[in-house]
C-alpha cells in the first residue's frame, strides 16, 4: 500500500518515467506497474497524471509513441525513449544526484554553525 506521506515531488515524475522507459518501450500502465514494483508501492501517484506527462514528453521529442500489440494481444500505445530523451535522462539523473547529495549534506551535517 502506498505510503501517504510520500507524495511525488514536483518535476520528479518526468524523471521516473524517462528512467523507466530507459529499460525499454512500455505502455503507460506498464510504466506505472514498474514504478510500483521497484518502489514497493511507496510512492503515491495519481495515475491519471501519467498521461499528460507522457504526452508532454512526446511533444518535447524525448519519447515517441506507436500503437502495438501487448503479449495478451491487446492494442496499447507504447512509448519509447528517443536518442534525445536518452540524453535528457542522463542529464536529469546527474542533476538529481547532485541535488540529493547537496540536500543530504545539509541534513547530515553535525552541530550548528556560528
Amino acid at each position, binding site marked *: 500500500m502506498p505510503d501517504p506521506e510520500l507524495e511525488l515531488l514536483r518535476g520528479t515524475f518526468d524523471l521516473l518515467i524517462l528512467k523507466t522507459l530507459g529499460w525499454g518501450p512500455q505502455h503507460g500502465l506498464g510504466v506505472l506497474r514498474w514504478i510500483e514494483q521497484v518502489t514497493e508501492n511507496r510512492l503515491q501517484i*495519481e*495515475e491519471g*497524471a501519467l*498521461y*499528460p506527462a507522457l*504526452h508532454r514528453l512526446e*511533444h518535447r521529442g524525448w519519447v515517441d509513441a506507436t500503437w502495438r500489440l501487448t503479449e495478451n494481444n491487446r*492494442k496499447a*500505445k507504447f512509448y519509447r525513449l528517443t536518442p534525445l530523451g536518452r540524453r535528457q535522462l542522463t542529464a536529469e539523473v546527474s542533476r538529481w544526484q547532485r541535488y540529493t547529495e547537496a540536500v543530504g549534506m545539509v541534513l547530515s551535517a553535525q552541530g550548528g554553525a556560528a
Partner: protein
Amino acid sequence: MKQDRLRRLLRLPATSGRMASDVDAEFRFHLEGRIEQFMAHGMTRDEALAEVQRRFGDAAAYKRDALTIDEAGLRQMRTMEWLSALRRETVRSVRTLSRTPSFSVIAVLTLALGIGASTAIFTVLDSVVLRPLPYSQPEELVAVLHPATVPGSGERKWGVSPGGYFHFRKNSQTLANLGIYQVGGTVVTGDREAEVVDLAVVTSTIFDVLRARPALGRLVTADDDRPDSARAVVLGYAYWQRRFGGDPEILGRRVETSDGAYEVIGVTEPGLTLPIPGPFSAAASLNGVDMDLWIPMKLDPAGPFWNNHPYVGVGRLRPGHTADDAQRELATLTAQLPDVVPNAYTAGFMKQYNFRAGVTPLREEVLGPTLPRTLWMLFAAVLLVMSIAAANVANLFLVRFEARRREVAVRTALGADRRHLAVHYIAESLALCTVACVLGMVLSWAALRGVIALAPADIPRLSSVALGPWAIAFAIGVAALVALVFGVMPLFRRDETTLTMRDEGRSSTASRGRRRVRSTLVVSQLATALVLLAAAGLLLRSFGRLREVRPGFDTSHVLAFNLALPFSEYDTREEALAFHRVLEERIRALPGVADVGSVSYAPFEGFGTGCTTVWRADAPYAPGESTPCVSTPTAMPGFFESLRISVRGRIPTWRDVDDRTQAVVVTAALAERLWPGQDPIGRGINSNGADSKEWYQIVGVVPELRAEALDRPPTEAVFYAPTGFRINQRTGNLNDLTWTVRTSGSSASGLAPAIRGILAELNPRVPFVEPRTMDQVKSRSMARTSFVMVLLGIAAAVALSLSIVGTYGVVSYIVSQRRAEIGIRLALGATRQSVSRMVMTDSLRLGLTGAALGMLGAFVVNRTLVALLFEVSPTDPWVLALAAVVLIAFATLAALLPARRAAGTDPVEALRG
C-alpha cells in the same frame, strides 16, 4: 530525420478527432488493465472499478490535458513543416532563378521599377492630398471667401470683410461658428536680438471653430476681443519654446513688438496652425501655418465698416449641414450686404464685381482643384503601369511554368499535392518580389529625393514628403499581392499536367495564344507609356513657353530681401525715408553693386493678391464702364533700374520724393484700359475717388510687365512714389519694403552677408528678412508646373523603360518560338539581313499599334492637364508626334538584340533542335 518522416508518412494523418479517440483508447487500456489486475487479487468487479477510479483521479481532466498537449504539438509540427518546406523551396527557387538570370533580372527590374514608381507617387499623394487637416473633425470646416470678377483681370477670391463677418455670424443657421483672421508679420524687440515673427490677427471665434486648446493660460476669448480690451497676445507653442525656453511663468509678461507691447495671456497647444486657403498664400499646406503670436482683432460690431476684404474666413458647419447648404445660405446673406452695410457695399459694386459668397470645404480650398486631380491621375497611371508590368512578369512566369511542365507533372505524379506546389511557387515568386520590393523602395527613395531637391515651395507639405510607414506598407503590400498572385496562378493550370505526361507538350496553338496575350500586354504598356510621355511632353513644352514669356524685367543677378523697420523707431515717413536713404547709399557703395531699389512687394510675390480701385482725373467712369481695381505698390527710386524694367517717359527720383511732385508710373496695360489708344503721360490718376482734389501725375509708362505670374495677363498697376500718402496698409507702408539689389555680373546671393553687416552697423534692431535671389523667386512661381512635370517625367520614364523591357521580352520570345522557321528560311537562302528585318518589323508593328492606341488615350486623358498647361493645347500635335516617335524608336531599339540573335541562328542547329 529521414526515418521520422517515413514514420510520419506510415502513420495515419494526425487530426484532432483521431487524437481524441487515441487518448480514449489509451485510457481505456489503462483502466481495464488495472481492473483485471485487481480482480485477479480477489476484488469484485465493482470494488475494482471503484479502486481504479480512485487511483486514477479525474480522468476527464487528464484526458483534456493530454489532448491539449497533443494539439499544440500538431499545430507546431504543421507550422514547422510549412516553414521548412518554404525554406527548402526558397533555396531551391533561388537556385533555379539564378540558373535563368535573364528571366530573373527582367522580372526583378520590371517589378522594382513598377513598385518604385508607384510607391514614390503614392508617397507624394499620401502626404500632399490624403492626410486629413490637423483639426478635430476637419470635415466640418469650410472656407468662407468672396469670389468676385474683377473687370479686365478675371476671377479672384477675396476674403471676408468685418461687416460681412458680423452679418454672417448673426444670421447664419448652417454655421455653428465663423472665425476670421489675417496673417502677417511683426518684429519682436525687447532685450534680445530683434526678430521677425509670424503674427495672426484673429477673432476669438477662430479658436472655437478650430477646436483649439491652450497649453497654458487661455486662448483669446470674447472678452479679449473687444475694441476696448487690453492688448493681449497668445504665444504659439513652438515660439514659446524657442524664444522663452518654455518658461512656465510667462503669463502676465510683456512682449515688445514694433507695433507696441502685449501682455501674454496664454500659450496655444503644440502644433496649432492656421489653415491658409489658396488665394491667401503661395505656400498652401494641409498642415497650416505655424504662428508665433496670436492677437485679437478687436473689431467693433458697431462699425464703421469699409469695403475691404483682407480676412480669411473659416467656419464650422452645424451637424447635419453641408458646405452646399452653407453656400446657399451665405449667398443669400451676401446679397443682403448692401442693405445691412450700405456704406461699404453698394448695389453697383455687387453687380460690377459680381461679388458672391464662396463656401467650400476647407480641404478643397487649401489644396486647390488642380493638384489633387493631377496627382490622382498620375497615381492611376502609375498603378496601370504597375499592373501591366506585373501582368508582364506573370506572363514570364507562365512561360517558365510551361517550360517546367514536365518537371511539375513528374512531381505531381509522385505525390506532390497542390499545397506543396503552392509552397514552391510562392517561394519562388516571394524570392523575386522581395528583391524587387527592396530595390523598388530604394528607387522610390531616390526618386523622392530628386523631387524634393527640385523643391517647389508652394506644393503643400512637399518638404515633409518622405518614405514613411504608409509608403513602405504600400510597397510591401503591392509586392506581397504580386507574389501571391504569381504563386497561386500556376495552380489553376494544374489540370494540364496530366496531359503533359501524355503528349510532349508541343502544342503550337497554345504558344500562339500565349504570344497574342503577350503582345496585347506589351501594346497596352506601350500605349500607357505614350500617354505619360505625351503628358510629360506637354508640361515640358508649357514650361518652355513659360520660360520664353518676357516678364518685362530681368531677374538675373538680383538679390531680394525684406526689411522690417520697427514702428517704435520709425513711425513717420521721414524717419523711414532717412534710414532708407542711408542704407541705400551704403549698399550702393558695396563693390559689385549696380543698382539698388525697393518696392512694397516684388514681382511674383504680391501682385494680383489684392487690389485698389483707381480713378482717372480727366473722365469719370461711364455708367457701363468697369472700375479698374489694380495693384498699387510704392516704388522707391532705383527700383525700376534694379530690375531693368524699362519705362517710357521718366522715372520718379529722390527729387520727386523731396518735392512731393506726386509723379507716378503706370503700366501700359492699365493705361490702355483707361485711355485706349492715347498717351497717358501727363494725365491724372488717384486711388481716393473721382471727387477727390488730389490727383497724381503720370510721368512714365512701363510698356511690358507680367508681375503676377508668367502665365497671367499683363499686369495693371500704378507705381506710387513714397510721398507719404497712405492709401492702405499694403501700399503705404514704408516699414516693410522688399529691396532689390542688382550686381554687375557677380553672384547676387553673395551680397547678403555684406548687407547684413551694414544693417547690424546701422541699427541691429532692424531684422534682415528672407534673402533670396529673384531667379529663385521666378522659379518658385513656376513650381507647380515644374513639380508635376517632374512627377510625370518619372512616371513616363518608368513606363517607357518597362515597355522597352516588355518589347524586348516579347520579341525575344517570338524569335525563340520561330527558331525553326528562321532556320528553314536561312537554309533556303534568306539573308541574315532579311531575317533581322523580319524581327524588327515585328517590333515595329508592336510599337506602331501601341503608339496609335496611346494617341487615342492621350487625346482623352491629357485634357485633365489643361489647368496646368500654358499656351499649349492638351492635344498639341508636335508633342504627340514627338512622343510617338520616341516610343517607336525605343520599341525598335529594344528589338535590336533579339534581331541580331535571330540573324545569328545556325540553321543546322535550329532545325535539329
